[in-house]
């Protein structure tokens, strides 16, 4: 099982890089959906004993992160007739390089921290990497929808780390994560919709009226 876990985590990190590298919005959404699916599978791989709430967690995660939210995002694209490009503030190549650096940092930091034993050892760096990359996307992508994707990655990172605690802290972790992802993205989606109405574009850089003068 440990192999499988590590494989899954590796795939998670790779999905991050897809988001960083792709030029197309739809690809971003697919990538994040895939990431959600992987995250849904992970609990099963981690806790093979397969108690009920592990399954519940897995199903809930897949449902929300891999199905509902991507749908919702695509709907937003259609509704708002968003152009399909990502329009990054930092070039794709550079993004990828920085991404690699971020992963390195993640591993460095978690190297300093005493990690949980066994297969879960890689959870921490993967989680940190995903968090940092999510922030990175939030910062370097000017399009509101892509920023939502970045935020999702961030959440996934947190969730990833939360998986280390499924046993000690039953249920609340999941509840917390799901609630957070759900409302966060939902509200943002609505707001995105409004932005589109007001600005005929999802470019959040236009949102810079409130300045100190």
């Amino acid at each position, binding site marked *: 099982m440990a192999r499988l876990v590590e494989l899954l985590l590796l795939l998670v990190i790779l999905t991050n890089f897809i988001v960083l590298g792709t030029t197309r919005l739809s690809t971003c959404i697919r990538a994040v959906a895939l990431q959600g699916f992987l995250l849904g599978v992970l609990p099963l791989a981690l806790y093979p004993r397969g108690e009920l709430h592990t399954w519940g967690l897995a199903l809930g995660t897949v449902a929300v992160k891999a199905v509902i939210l991507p749908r919702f995002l695509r709907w937003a694209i259609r509704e708002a007739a968003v152009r399909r490009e990502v329009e990054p503030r930092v070039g794709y190549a550079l993004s990828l390089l920085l991404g690699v650096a971020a992963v390195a940092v993640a591993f460095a930091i978690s190297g300093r921290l005493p990690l949980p034993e066994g297969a879960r050892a890689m959870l921490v760096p993967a989680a940190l990497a995903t968090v940092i990359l999510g922030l990175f996307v939030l910062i370097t992508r*000017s399009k509101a929808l892509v920023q939502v994707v970045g935020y999702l990655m961030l959440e996934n990172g947190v969730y990833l780390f939360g998986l280390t605690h499924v046993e000690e802290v039953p249920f609340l972790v999941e509840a917390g994560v799901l609630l957070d992802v759900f409302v966060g993205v939902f509200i943002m989606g609505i707001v995105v919709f409004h932005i589109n109405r007001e600005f005929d574009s999802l470019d959040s*850089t236009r949102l810079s009226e409130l300045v100190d003068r």
Partner: protein
Amino acid sequence: MTLFLGGIAAVALGGLALVALSFRPRWAAAAFQLLVGGGCMAAVLPALRVLSGGTAGELRIRATVPGGDWVFGIDPLSAFFLLVVLGVGAAAALYGVSYLSSESGAGPVRTAHAVTALEIVALALVVTARSAIPFLITWEIMAVLAYFLVVFESRLPDVRRAGLIYLICTHTGTLALVALFASWGQLAGDLSFDALAAAAPALPAGAALVFALGLCGFGFKAGLVPLHFWLPGAHGVAPSHVSALMSGVVIKMGIYGLLRLVNLAGAPPAWWGWLVLVLGLGSGVLGVLWALAQHDLKRLLAYHSVENIGIILLGLGVGALGARSGAPTVAVLGFAGAVLHTLNHALFKSLLFLGAGAVLRATGTRLIDRLGGLGRRMPYTWGAFLVGSIAIVGLPPLNGFVSEWLVYQGLLRSGAMAPARAAVFGVAGLALIGALALACFAKVGGAVFLGQPRSAQAREGREVGVGLLAPMAALAFGCAVIGMAPAVAVSPALRVAATLGGVGRGAAGEAAAAIGPALTWIALTAAALLALVAAGWWLRTRVLSRRPQAWTETWACGYARPDPRMQYTAASFAAPLMAAYGRAAGVHVTREGGAFHTHATDPVLDGVALPLWQRVLAWGQAVRPIQQGRLWMYLLYVLGALLGLLLYLALRAGGTGP
């Protein structure tokens, strides 16, 4: 103590009565005058008892807020300043009633009177507070009420500007005081003055921090150069009785604070004494020079407050040096000089401001060079103003001479105290200050009250009513009493000085013995002066009654008919001194054609404070780009903070883990 509390309660009540009885203006005014006057009189009695060696109880309020109980009490120092507060306060408040009666808008006027009364109460509480928290509270209330009084005519922009500058300065000073007590209180059990005094020996580095903060915080209030720059504006634009109250009493709270500091923290370090001495010299000389350069009567008087604060500081500084270098007599004389000059300046400066107010009421202008010849039309005001002038210049037979003489005593004797002998040079400074002050008040008295009117307004001037004259008369009487019978005021001053740091009880006795006979002689000289002048005048009239007398035009060296515009103006009167000291005084002299103009700026305000503020504004603009409204930048800050902290973790927590 109960009498004192009852008195100030009556004062506060008088203020409220004025607002409450607004439907019966006449009653309200009567109640105000009765309660404020009576309250001040009642409250001053315990102070007098303390000054004559008696004691007054203390009021101890159990406080739930941090900082220990709130204590109020009267010791000689408090008592002496209570004289200042209540005496001048009552005069100013009563003057104000008639002064503002002609103002438009009854509502603001009533409020102003009420605030004045409350200001007196706040001042009385400041000098009686025996614990840091109530002291700071009453201090700030006093300062803020004064602000409201200053901006009475807030519709005028320069009034608002002056008020703003005052408010900023006083609050900055308060912050320094907060720091003072916060740092000191850490060593004491609670913040009562007794506890602080007990903890004083434990203060680090010879209490350097405490004394420095005190000088800054109280210095702002006292208006010593270079912290004076709020003063001329605020005192200039305020209603005259408020100017009198502020110049006479409010800025004295700074002096009270410094004295209280010496009283609690013990003999100050030598550097502090020197610093105060030098600041005193600077304030005195520059203050009077700036005053000479003014054309606005009230601004001129305000700058003279700076000058007199300088004289007070000279006494304080030499006293501190004496206390530090084991010359108790010098210490006592210096301190006593400072204390007494505080009272004297309160008397004659408020007298002068009230006189200026009378002139302003009568003519409607404060510009000296538009006045003239008022002595004929306003003889009583002129008399009062003359008394104030002679007193402030420090000439016998009035009170200014006595206190300056005390300061001279301290300075002259300092030549004999080994470590700080150079203080004697202060004598020369004080002499210069006196001579310049004489020049300045010769200018004011002459240009405003003598010669011929220089404008229609001055020609229209008529004597003001008794409501304005009576308070002036009272203050003038005070000046005369202290001048003619110095012992009355000097011995309390000595008693106060004896309570200050580094001075033993015995020292006061020695000092009293040293100057006792001199005081008698001064009194005799003053009496002889008056008697001889009277006799000489009588003789002269006798003689001239048998001589022919003729009346004609002023001799103008052959010029046919002199007119008012030919008179010397105040500006040109001060011109030679400005030519000598002008640069120091920040005066710009311009001569075009026959006209001669001097334009006075305040080197500190216009040269330092305002440019500094402009610089700060520029800095503020310089950092605006941080907040540009770009979301990704904001997120970048979050990421940066996070990574920074993680780096800190990596460095601090280094090594642990696998």
